[in-house]
């Protein structure tokens, strides 16, 4: 090794980093990450807030004051049962996030495991898993929820399970595809040459290298889960009354669309904010977790 080579990449240079080179330093400069993060945070904070406080009870029906316009008492007015819209939106965020988190966790657990197994085993195992995943993929969430609701009845659990199942094939395919690319890398061969088994390689080499791809996909899957939850609640297959949810609010509003159109706009806007926020967050993370940039840590 010649002297200039060793000094030019000496360790102090690598550790002495400007703030702009750290993850958060870069993140806070990234426009869509900041915007997406704020919107997602807004939804999350609303959901958490609704656990301890809402301006009115979202279950309190007051027919006398139904369909009120926005006022000091009811900031966004009331719906056809006289329930406070703000309270309904806050409580609706809770159902949305709960369904999203649980459904995505189901999809993630099964999808990632199946994808990693398919990629590590190859051959027949891979073939069976992938064909099974194609089969599941052929049924949209709404269809599987209808089938499931027909068997066990509609409800939050039904919609969670249906959305969860619908998430599995997408994540299986993504995991298997990116894991296969890692398995073909030389450092995996080197790890095998040093005597590591397939399980160890999967945990220590494959998973860490596909994590950033999975994190980005996760935000998109979460957005899809929110949309699916709203659709199922709208159809009456998801969250059941009186449990508030954005999809139910849309459903309630549709009969009064000409009388008070704003009733449909509020939950619609809430869904749009959540989905947009998560998608922007995903875009931002994709840039920030790009290995070519992330390497500079």
């Amino acid at each position: 090794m010649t002297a200039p080579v060793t000094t030019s990449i000496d360790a102090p240079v690598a550790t002495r980093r400007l703030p702009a080179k750290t993850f958060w330093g870069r993140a806070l400069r990234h426009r869509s990450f900041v915007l997406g993060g704020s919107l997602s945070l807004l939804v999350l904070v609303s959901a958490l807030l609704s656990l301890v406080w809402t301006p009115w009870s979202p279950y309190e029906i007051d027919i006398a004051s139904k369909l009120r316009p926005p006022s000091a008492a009811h900031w966004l007015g009331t719906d056809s049962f006289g329930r406070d819209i703000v309270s309904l939106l806050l409580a609706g965020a809770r159902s949305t996030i709960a369904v999203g988190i649980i459904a995505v966790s189901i999809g993630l657990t099964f999808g990632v495991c199946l994808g990693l197994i398919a990629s590590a085993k190859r051959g027949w195992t891979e073939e069976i898993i992938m064909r099974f995943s194609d089969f599941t993929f052929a049924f949209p969430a709404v269809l599987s929820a209808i089938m499931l609701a027909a068997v066990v009845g509609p409800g939050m659990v039904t919609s969670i399970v249906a959305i969860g199942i619908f998430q599995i094939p997408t994540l299986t395919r993504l995991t298997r595809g990116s894991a296969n690319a890692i398995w073909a890398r030389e450092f995996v061969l080197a790890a095998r040459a040093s005597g590591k088994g397939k399980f160890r390689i999967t945990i220590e080499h494959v998973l860490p290298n596909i994590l950033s791809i999975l994190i980005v996909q996760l935000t998109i899957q979460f957005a899809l889960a929110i949309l699916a939850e709203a659709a199922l609640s709208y159809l009456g297959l998801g969250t059941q009354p009186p449990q508030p949810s954005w999809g139910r609010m849309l459903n309630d509003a549709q009969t009064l669309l000409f009388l008070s159109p704003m009733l449909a706009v509020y939950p619609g806007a809430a869904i749009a904010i959540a989905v947009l926020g998560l998608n922007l967050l995903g875009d931002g993370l994709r840039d920030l977790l790009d290995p070519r940039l992330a390497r500079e840590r």
Partner: protein
Amino acid sequence: MAERSTMPLIEVDNLGVRLNTSRGPAQAVRGVSFSLKRGETLGLVGESGCGKSVTAMSLMGLLPDSARVTGSIRLDGNELAGLADADYCRLRGNRISMIFQEPMTALNPMHTIGNQVAEPLRRHKKYSAGQARQEAIALLDRVGLPDPARRIDAYPHQFSGGQRQRITIAMALACEPDLLIADEPTTALDVTIQGQILDLIADLVEERGMSMILISHDLGVIAENVQRMMVMYGGTVVESGPTDEVFRRMGHPYTQGLFRARPKLGARKGTRLKTISGTVPELADLPAGCTFSERCPLVIDACRAALPPMADVGPGHGVRCIRTDVSMAANVGALSA
């Protein structure tokens, strides 16, 4: 111990490997036999796709699942062909190690180099984290990485290609393997670094009494680093013998062609490099007889009829050619070139 040192460490007998390629099944290696004692070094030389790496991978048990291995590979008398993967895992990195061609990609970018060097020690030798770390520093020091104690927690991208190759060598040698397979260890490196790395490998092999199989397409690398050599073409060994002997009296037209095709220092300006006409045949459609018959200047009809047997032309020197009478008369060995 006396018996151990005379018994071959690794014995390969009539090794054949059949791979499933996109163009159908291909006999990537056939009839490869050799044995290697402790401390001996063997070179495998040939063009890309001649079966060098497939031979190495079959010794490591790292061929794709679809590959079919025939013949036998014995390590200290124990059969390795068809060994279960879990049992093979105990050998790899412990008794047989490998150095790869691309140091830039042979290290996992997500783990520190210290962890990657210490890994095999922890698994095979059951060292504690502290012990393994100390040993890793010692190993990195031995392979010539500057200031290893301070740089052990750095990530691979913070090192140059030559330094990374030193790190992969440290990884491969961590458990003091009996056999080291070096697959084109210097091909991806700068010429100035190549010599240093080869010297380092040679020193370590001698110091630890390891056996080594060095794979290269570069005759110069082979000439300087191994005691015996095998020239491969189209999945078969076309010439084998002690390195000096083979370079002095090259018997196979292919070996001679390879030798003529090497670039020479001090050649007159404008001198064209000699080439071997034609291209390496696809392994899926090798010619029926001698694998080199399509490109051989001395080809006769009999060459295309059947794969020629290995013929002895000197002490331990075999040539798979039926025209050695002509080829060796028109000798182009190192001395006459």
